[in-house]
């Protein structure tokens, strides 16, 4: 029963959403709209599971005083403070919740993201080496695209942005399209395996 019931749910909803795609019948459309609502409700519960999980992991770290445990206190404090402010004073414009978000979280996350430029520069300095033919192709391509994507490339020669665009439009897109087709076929296969109950790893057991 513990495995059959979820497999049956999966089968019914999988087949229903697959078939209703081809029909505009009002009853099916109404049922489909209802299912979309359920999806959002289920998702909100997964968020709750995530919050509980963060609490459990960081509480354990604090109680065992594992490495960097003071950061765990900050994490829990952050969640509690934002939850209290959000539920207590709302999240609209001018609320303390939004003030903290805009003046602490946005600058902090932007700073972290901006640091990537430094690591990219360092990695390029060490990684982009003319070691063999393949590495040479990668190196030259990277230089052309980097120059072609800023006005400097155009100022040197019109040929640079044109070549950069050709690289993006042709070899890069061809490779990406191949990957997308592979992902698409893989997704269809996995979906069919889940709907038909062949793939059961989502139940926690072996497939």
């Amino acid at each position: 029963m513990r495995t059959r019931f979820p497999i049956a749910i999966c089968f019914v909803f999988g087949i229903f959403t697959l078939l209703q795609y081809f029909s505009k019948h009002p009853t099916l459309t109404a049922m489909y709209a209802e299912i979309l609502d359920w999806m959002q409700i289920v998702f909100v519960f997964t968020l709750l599971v995530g919050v509980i999980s963060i609490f459990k992991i960081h509480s354990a770290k604090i109680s065992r005083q594992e490495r960097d445990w003071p950061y765990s206190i900050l994490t829990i404090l952050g969640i509690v403070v934002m939850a209290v402010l959000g539920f207590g004073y709302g999240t609209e414009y001018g609320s303390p919740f939004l003030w903290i978000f805009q003046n602490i979280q946005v600058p902090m996350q932007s700073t972290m993201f901006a640091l990537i430029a430094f690591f990219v520069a360092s990695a390029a300095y060490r990684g982009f080496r003319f070691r063999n033919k393949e590495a040479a192709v990668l190196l030259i391509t990277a230089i052309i695209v980097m120059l072609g994507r800023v006005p400097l490339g155009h100022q040197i020669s019109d040929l640079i942005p044109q070549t950069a665009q050709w690289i993006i439009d042709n070899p890069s897109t061809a490779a990406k399209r191949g990957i997308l087709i592979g992902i698409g076929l893989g997704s269809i296969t996995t979906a069919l395996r889940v709907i038909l109950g062949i793939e059961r790893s989502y139940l926690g057991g072996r497939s």
Partner: protein
Amino acid sequence: MDLSRLDRRIIFLIIAIVVIVPMLFDVTPEVQITKDTEQIFDAIDSLKTGDYLMVSFDFEAASFPEMRPLASVILNHSFEKDLKIIGLALFSEGTAIGYTLLEQIAREYDKVYGVDYVYLGFRPQYVSAILGMGESIIKVFPEDYLKQPLEKYPDFLELENYENLPLLVSVADGSLPIHWADYANARYGQRVAVACAAVMVTAFKPYFESGQLIGPAAGVKGAAEYEKLLGYEGAAHRRLFTQSVVHLAIIILVIVANVSAYVWRKK
């Protein structure tokens, strides 16, 4: 001295200098408009006064410095054309950012909330939100961001689902435009234009080639091109000069490292 093994802290210092110093100069480089940016500009420009335009702020706080100029040019263009804007966010972090930006730019054009624009806010689980709006927008967003029922805004009541929406713009730092293409375009035929982070262009390229997505205006360069199309040189132009210098610095560093490694091997 083997320069190919330069201490990473020196590289960090060089990058810091080439980022900070160009910002001190008010240089606006000459920008060439690409067909990609022109496509999204034309898509918005072809809309008539009073047409609905949905703008989805699909980005997170981390990429705000790159996404802000893009979102700004889209909103400037839309308000200039007197379009009715419906803002929303499918990432929780984009919710407040999108609302703040919309409010700021709307104020510049003396636009009124509820008449010229509304902000629907955030809905979790973007796949079901995108699909749900194809059936009924008011069912997915019964209230706006300000907790007001959507029925309160008669100017937006005609917008039942994607059928009355001539264009949707996803301002995105990640892969959300693919979901707009997969679910809103493929299923409901919704026209979707994209303004995205520069790094995402190659990921979306097959969708642009197939006509499932329109655009893109990508990164700071795309925003600068859009500014030029709108006839002004704003924040994106100034940032583009810094970006040019940083790209050049990285290229010089890579060449120096390769030459140094080659000379060192010869020895």
